[in-house]
């Protein structure tokens, strides 16, 4: 090892240690602590603090509220992400043909994505207001209680989420489309491919990898989503929009069962990791599978 290499090693350590220390204290340590916490029964207001083992997890296995929340979380995730990918792709393809006003188009598009989700929640609360909300007015003065009807609340929530996050997918696809050299389309035209055939055999295959990345990002975010439902519906009506995150939050800070809430948090973490792992596995190039 040369003096330069040795010096680089030391510099590298010095450069990386503050960040590493911060990450250790702020994510790794809490990550381990929450696991430990989930094995305890901690209810501070009653002064209860004892080791509970896997009691919380065993309880969750037979807890109908947990299974409903899991179903809501998965339903929300699958439908939201599906719609976002479909719509986002369509918008990206539309933007690709855009010549004038691209900057304005991107401003309108990214506006809805960049808002704080609490703002989005407040905005849609007003739009869904039963008697004077814009949605009902547009529908001809019906008095539908969007957020209060157990059958409509989840679709209404999903629409708000799609509104907020579709632009992310659209932007990623659009950025990828911009990197496709015009010669590729030229070649397709020379080969006699029409618009539909070009889309099917040229554009979509080139978008495949960015769509998969968008799918991963959006799925992980949808599984972790909290702000929008917490503020928009609070999990109601009758728990129809209560996701695992909302259930965890209520357990942690409203009924103050720290251990139990931590256990739900751990389940969410496991779910997120499972999805990420399955995704990376599916993506692993063939031949590299060992």
């Amino acid at each position, binding site marked *: 090892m040369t003096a330069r290499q040795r010096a680089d090693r030391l510099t590298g350590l010095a*450069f990386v240690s503050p960040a*590493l220390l911060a990450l250790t204290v702020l994510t790794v340590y809490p990550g381990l602590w929450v696991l430990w916490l989930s094995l305890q029964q901690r209810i501070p207001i009653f002064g209860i603090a004892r080791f509970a083992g896997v009691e919380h997890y065993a309880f969750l296995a037979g807890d109908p509220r947990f299974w409903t929340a899991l179903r809501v979380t998965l339903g929300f995730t699958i439908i939201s992400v599906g719609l976002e990918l479909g719509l986002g792709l369509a918008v990206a393809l539309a933007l690709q043909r855009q010549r004038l006003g691209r900057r304005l188009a991107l401003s309108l598009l990214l*506006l*809805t994505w*960049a808002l704080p989700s*609490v703002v989005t*929640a407040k905005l849609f609360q007003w739009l869904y207001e039963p008697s004077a909300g814009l949605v009902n007015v547009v529908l001809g003065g019906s008095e539908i209680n969007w957020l209060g009807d157990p059958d409509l609340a989840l679709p209404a929530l999903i629409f708000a989420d799609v509104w907020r996050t579709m632009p992310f997918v659209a932007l990623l696809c659009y950025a990828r489309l911009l990197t496709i050299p015009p010669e590729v389309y030229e070649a397709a035209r020379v080969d006699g491919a029409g618009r539909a055939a070009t889309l099917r055999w040229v554009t979509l295959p080139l978008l495949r990898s960015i769509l998969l990345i968008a799918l991963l990002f959006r799925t992980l975010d949808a599984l972790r989503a909290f702000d929008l439902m917490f503020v928009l519906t609070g999990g109601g009506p009758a728990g129809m929009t209560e996701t695992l995150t909302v259930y965890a939050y209520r357990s942690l800070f409203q009924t103050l069962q720290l251990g139990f809430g931590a256990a739900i948090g751990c389940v969410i973490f496991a779910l997120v990791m499972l999805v*990420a792992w399955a995704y990376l596995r599916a993506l692993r190039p063939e031949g590299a599978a060992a």
Partner: protein
Amino acid sequence: MKRRSRLWDVAVLLLLAVWATPYFWQVRTSFTPDHELLTTTRPLPASGTLEHYRAVAEKSVMPRALGNSLGVAALTTLLALLLGLPAAYAVARLPIPAKGLLLLVVIASTAFPQITTVSPLYLLLRALGLRDTWTALVLANTSFALPLLMWLLAGFIREIPMELEEAAFLDGAGRATVLRLVILPLVAPGVASAALLTFLAAWNEFLFAYTFTASEASRTVPVALALFPGVFEIPWGDIAAASILASLPPVIIVIVLQRWLVRGLVAGALKE
């Protein structure tokens, strides 16, 4: 052909404007007097008013919350940059032991659900006596801001040709000097993009702020908005005005700093 493409451009813009309508509607609501709010739905109110903004400015905690949010988001960005820039350079260029493990921690940290770490962080911050302070929020936000920033910056630094640094080494410069005088100027646009995304994420953050704050001493804008008080009726106009104020930094970023925002967003996803 030309005419058709002009038509297409206008159609796409119109569709996107329709998509953004909920936001424009909130702008309209914020200028509509109360007595008109529940009765008319004309695109523009018969008489515009600033009463909602006045109410928010004089009677709500919003002014204080705007200051808190600005401070917390700026300090989060600053701290994450101070910690993240040297670390990103080391990850991109230097031989550090267990680099694979470090990268795994960084990636896993970006996937950490906030709801999972919120309870131990709450206990930690309470034990440190930091509840209801800016410091608590800055530290908590750093837990997601730092990995995001490191990831983006390491990508941007890798794009810089090695030769530029070599020349500086031949002149006898050390790594710290190279980082400051060679890398930093070249990666400045990337730093701007990454800082913008970090600021935006910190500005919009809700769960940590909602949990770790207890009073207007540290409540941020999203928390103040979520807790917006209504005595007998929901004050839709005031809430609209407060939401518009809460959305100003993101809207400015999207319109004025769009190039950097897009660059950061795309860089995070197109590079693996």
